[in-house]
């Protein structure tokens, strides 16, 4: 199987109609252009409500750009597809399916389950959940749930894997452990990864390229390349310098207006 996953984002703009006819339109993403090479790990970082999720949803094909195009391997994205997996912030596991059934969901849809039965266990092991095959989501911790979601997306061998703040709700310990697991999986499967995150340290620890966005409407302000080898040292000098660079670009002062936080 030839793996690719080159993404070309070309002058993408997204305008939402207001809630009712009186309300003003909202421009969430404004003229973003970028190219992502196959197998790259890109982090998208920016203030709350700036339009990161919107951009990611357009990459997944769940929303359509108002203007501009997105192409994956020279094919325009017109709708969702098995080629582009997505892991959401909140757990979107199917609560009525146990771990094994959740992971094999994509295979079942594609009628490949009988053929690829063994792989289900492989992917469960890969995300370190051996022994939890028969457990339902409501008995899993948040971190375990996100790992199941990861396995569920990976088993379809997507060319591109998209993450919308997948570790936002996890505690620091669990998060660090998952970072390392994710890097191992990425190195093994060579998938193009695009992750939206709020956490600058997470971005610097994981990504090759960090896309820093402006407040709404999202414009691609700057791209920070991270040229450190894995595993990275969170307390290393270069690491801390890169973190501060990203923070400076985002112009984060620690005193953002509170009212902006309304969701």
């Amino acid at each position, binding site marked *: 199987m030839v793996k690719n996953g080159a993404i070309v984002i070309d002058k993408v703009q997204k305008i939402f109609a207001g809630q009712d006819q009186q309300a003003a339109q909202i421009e969430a993403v404004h003229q973003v252009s970028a190219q992502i090479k196959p197998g790259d790990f890109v982090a998208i970082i920016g203030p709350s409500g700036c339009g990161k999720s919107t951009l990611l949803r357009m990459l997944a094909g769940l929303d359509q750009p108002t203007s501009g195009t997105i192409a994956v391997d020279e094919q325009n994205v017109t709708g*969702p597809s098995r080629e582009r997996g997505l892991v*959401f912030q909140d757990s979107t596991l199917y609560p009525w399916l146990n771990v094994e059934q959740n992971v094999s969901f994509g295979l079942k849809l594609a009628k490949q389950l009988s053929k690829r039965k063994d792989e289900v266990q492989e992917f469960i092991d890969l995300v370190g959940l051996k022994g939890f095959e028969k457990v339902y*989501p*409501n008995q899993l911790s948040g971190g375990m749930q996100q790992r199941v979601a990861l396995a569920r997306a990976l088993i379809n061998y997507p060319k591109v894997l998209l993450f919308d703040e997948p570790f936002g709700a996890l505690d620091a310990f669990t998060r660090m452990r998952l970072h390392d697991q994710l890097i191992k999986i990425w190195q093994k499967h060579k998938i193009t990864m695009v992750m939206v995150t709020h956490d600058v340290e997470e971005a610097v620890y994981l990504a090759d390229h960090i896309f820093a966005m402006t407040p709404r409407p999202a414009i691609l302000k700057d791209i920070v390349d991270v040229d450190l080898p894995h595993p990275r040292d969170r307390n290393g000098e270069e690491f801390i310098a890169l973190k501060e660079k990203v923070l400076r670009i985002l112009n984060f002062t620690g005193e953002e207006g509170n009212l902006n936080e309304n969701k």
Partner: protein
Amino acid sequence: MLTGRFRGFVYKSYFIGGAFLLVSLYNLATLKFALFNPLYFPAPEAILNVLVSDWQFLLMCLLYSLRLLGIGLLFGISAGLLTGILIGWYTSWNYWLDPIVKLFGPIPSTALIPIVLSAFATSFQASAFLIALSTWFPITILTNSGIRNVKQDLFEVADTMGATDTQKILRVAVPAATPDIFVGIFNGICSSFITLVTAEMIGVKYGIGWYINWQRQIMGYANVYAGLIIIAVTFSLIITIFFKFRDHFLRWQKGVIKW
């Protein structure tokens, strides 16, 4: 194991004692002091006597009722699920069916007896239809709302795995709506019980509602009570079994109806 059972018994003993006390009081009030009209409030012995001597006939009536109820519920639940899914999922079905459900659904099926009697070939069909109808409405409403309340994410995840429309209905929408669907079925079962007694007024051969009604006509109130006791026990059992089944089916869920 044994000690567990013993404990259970001790736990229930006050209740059992209380029940006995109540029966004795009733006995005294009717037999000894004739406080109530003994025609309408027969002595417990008389009721027990009916249960013992008439059990075969009562059992047959019960089986007839259960058959009617079973067929009615089967059709009612199936139709309710179907309508609920159609109006919950498809915009165009919703457009045409939703107003019809809202207008016709709340009509009590007991009011439709004159029409169904003439519309169906046999009165058994008419009775079964009445039961099905009373079950159909709440199930439709709750299936519909269950499906509409499914989190959009769950469908989007399926989309990114290439799900077809049918797969999204059967593998996402319906399972996600099951908690609501079960509430609807509970509601439907309650309605079917109420309707059964009325449905058995139209030309059934036997039935426990028919029995009560018949005995009422000939003032056999001990028999009426015996019938009521059978209804109480059976219907309570049906609901208990239904909830047991539900608990097993929804073992992945927290916070379901407690029975």
